[in-house]
């Protein structure tokens, strides 16, 4: 069962939205104790929303393309009157006065929101261990992290609690957890999906995007949330990119570049899967070649100056005045300091400090200004590469899911988890992670497809072709690695 089938069943009256919602809530109740994907389950509201969908169907109406499909929301997406924490003590108990645009659009499409998912505090992290409310565990192996920062949404889909979820991706926070949990995760072109109601981390990098178990489901969710929104000044003034219609178009004649910088340096078992995915695309008719985009190597350093700089500015709003935590003190400055000191966790403090430093007088040119110039280099390098190929192929993450606690005391090691995903954020380009077999440890591997701005239709086409040829991501530990091609490509 997938989201498309559920929506078909609900729209045609074969199955009630209520029964679908009840099944999802029961699955969460039975399984989330071990996974901790959810910070909040909104059961009553979900059942009420499902009943409204059923009423529309009973009255002969069409509740929309996501009719009755249960959806989970990363808890940095504002939900009116429903707590939105960002995984932070500083927003514990805060109830937003409005819904994010993507939440409005989900409801308009007939989807049923079942709850809010865990995340690294303010989406800063790659393992979901930075949540103030405890870590989420990887459903494929609960001793491992689910990735992050959208680890709760990825885990909720991977565990089968919901078929669809939304996350946000600033440096890989959708694609990396999707890879580690063995589900599909996609970051749209910057501006393709409204950020209105997404709590800001780094505004020039943040994008909301879908998680799903299949490429077709992810495409459907992307179409439902995309398109212009006057409430977001960076929203592109164009309708949602249609992508579902061309999923079956195949890759005959498409030019695919296997990007050396996104393969060399990742774990050998992960690199092997990327090569295997490239072979599968070649077998399906694509023209595959090796490409090198050397400037991508600078992406990580530039990102860890730009994103903290923007974060230090965005998070200045948490001052104990208008919403969230206040720790009382004698004057405003002392109250601000006491509130922020008590409300933010260590990783958020680290990034605010890094950003404040990178923007401070005397260092601005050397760090922030220089990082912005590198951003130009990365964009130009992509432009050069896309003159010769339609899409790029690489690993999503350098390794499979790592053990809980493994990298919490080593921020630099954690940051390196994002090395393959960051360039697309710097350039504002779309990218998708598709499950493609397992690593030597039997855990899922994600292969990433990258495309130029607004080339979502091509991106999803390639993803669908890869999915059709992908070895399973579940089951027994994979056979020992050897020469490529030993595992039959279906």
């Amino acid at each position, binding site marked *: 069962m997938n989201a498309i089938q559920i929506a078909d069943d609900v729209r045609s009256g074969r199955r009630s939205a209520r029964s679908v919602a009840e099944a999802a809530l029961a699955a969460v109740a039975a399984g989330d104790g071990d996974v901790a994907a959810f910070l909040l389950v909104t059961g009553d509201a979900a059942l009420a929303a499902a009943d409204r969908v059923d009423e529309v169907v009973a009255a002969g109406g069409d509740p929309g393309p996501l009719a009755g499909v249960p959806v989970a929301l990363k808890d940095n997406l504002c939900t009116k009157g429903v707590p939105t924490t960002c995984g932070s003590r500083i927003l514990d108990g805060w109830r937003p006065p409005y819904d994010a645009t993507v939440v409005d659009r989900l409801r308009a499409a007939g989807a049923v929101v079942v709850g809010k998912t865990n995340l690294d505090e303010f989406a800063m992290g790659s393992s979901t261990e930075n949540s103030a409310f405890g870590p989420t565990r990887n459903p494929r192996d609960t001793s491992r992290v689910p990735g992050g920062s959208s680890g709760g949404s990825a885990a909720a889909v991977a565990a089968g609690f919901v078929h669809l979820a939304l996350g946000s991706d600033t440096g890989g926070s959708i694609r990396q957890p999707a890879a580690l949990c063995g589900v599909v995760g996609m970051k749209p072109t910057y501006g393709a999906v409204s950020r209105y109601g997404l709590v800001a981390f780094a505004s020039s990098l943040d994008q909301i995007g879908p998680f799903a178990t299949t490429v077709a489901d992810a495409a459907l969710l992307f179409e439902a949330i995309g398109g212009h929104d006057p409430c977001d000044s960076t929203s592109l003034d164009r309708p949602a990119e249609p992508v579902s219609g061309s999923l079956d178009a195949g890759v005959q004649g498409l030019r695919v570049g296997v990007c050396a910088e996104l393969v060399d340096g990742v774990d050998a078992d992960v690199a092997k899967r990327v090569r295997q995915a490239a072979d599968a695309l070649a077998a399906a008719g694509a023209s595959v070649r090796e490409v090198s985009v050397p400037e991508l190597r*600078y992406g990580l350093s530039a990102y860890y100056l730009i994103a903290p700089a923007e974060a230090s500015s965005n998070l200045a709003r948490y001052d104990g005045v208008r919403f969230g935590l206040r720790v009382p003190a004698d*004057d405003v400055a002392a109250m601000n300091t006491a509130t922020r000191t008590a409300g933010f966790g260590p990783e958020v403090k*680290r990034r605010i400090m890094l950003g404040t*430093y990178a923007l401070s007088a*005397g260092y601005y040119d050397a*760090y922030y200004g220089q990082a912005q110039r*590198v951003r130009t280099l990365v964009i130009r390098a992509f432009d050069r590469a896309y003159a010769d190929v339609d899409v790029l192929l690489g690993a999503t993450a350098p390794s499979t899911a790592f053990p809980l606690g493994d990298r919490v005391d080593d921020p630099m090691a954690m940051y390196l988890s994002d090395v393959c995903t960051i360039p697309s954020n*710097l350039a504002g380009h779309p990218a998708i992670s598709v499950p493609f077999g397992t690593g030597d440890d039997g855990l899922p591997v994600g292969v990433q497809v990258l495309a130029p701005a607004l080339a979502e239709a091509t991106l999803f086409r390639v993803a669908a072709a890869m999915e059709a040829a992908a070895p399973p991501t579940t089951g027994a530990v994979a056979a020992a690695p050897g020469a490529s091609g030993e595992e039959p490509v279906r």
Partner: protein
Amino acid sequence: MSGREPGHLGRDEVAHVAKLARLDLTDDELDRFTGQLAQVLDHAADVAGLDLADVPPTAHPLPVRNVLRPDRPVPSLDRDDALAAAPDVEDHRFRVPRILGEAP
């Protein structure tokens, strides 16, 4: 390249940055953050060392321009809704402790 040379982050500097960011760090945190931030900045040295004088900076992935709409009144966030989440409110305003170091 104007400004100071990067790569000499010390404990005093971290303490100063914390003050600017309105964060109060313990001695232990100061020690830990100094080492960790220095490590990230060391990694950034490959970027800081590039000669990019001729490359323009990118602040945003898209060409950003002013977005205007017709000047028509539309409903906005209700005042009481805006104040509902505030830690302290008085006479329809956000209430805060004294702003200056001494009472007015």
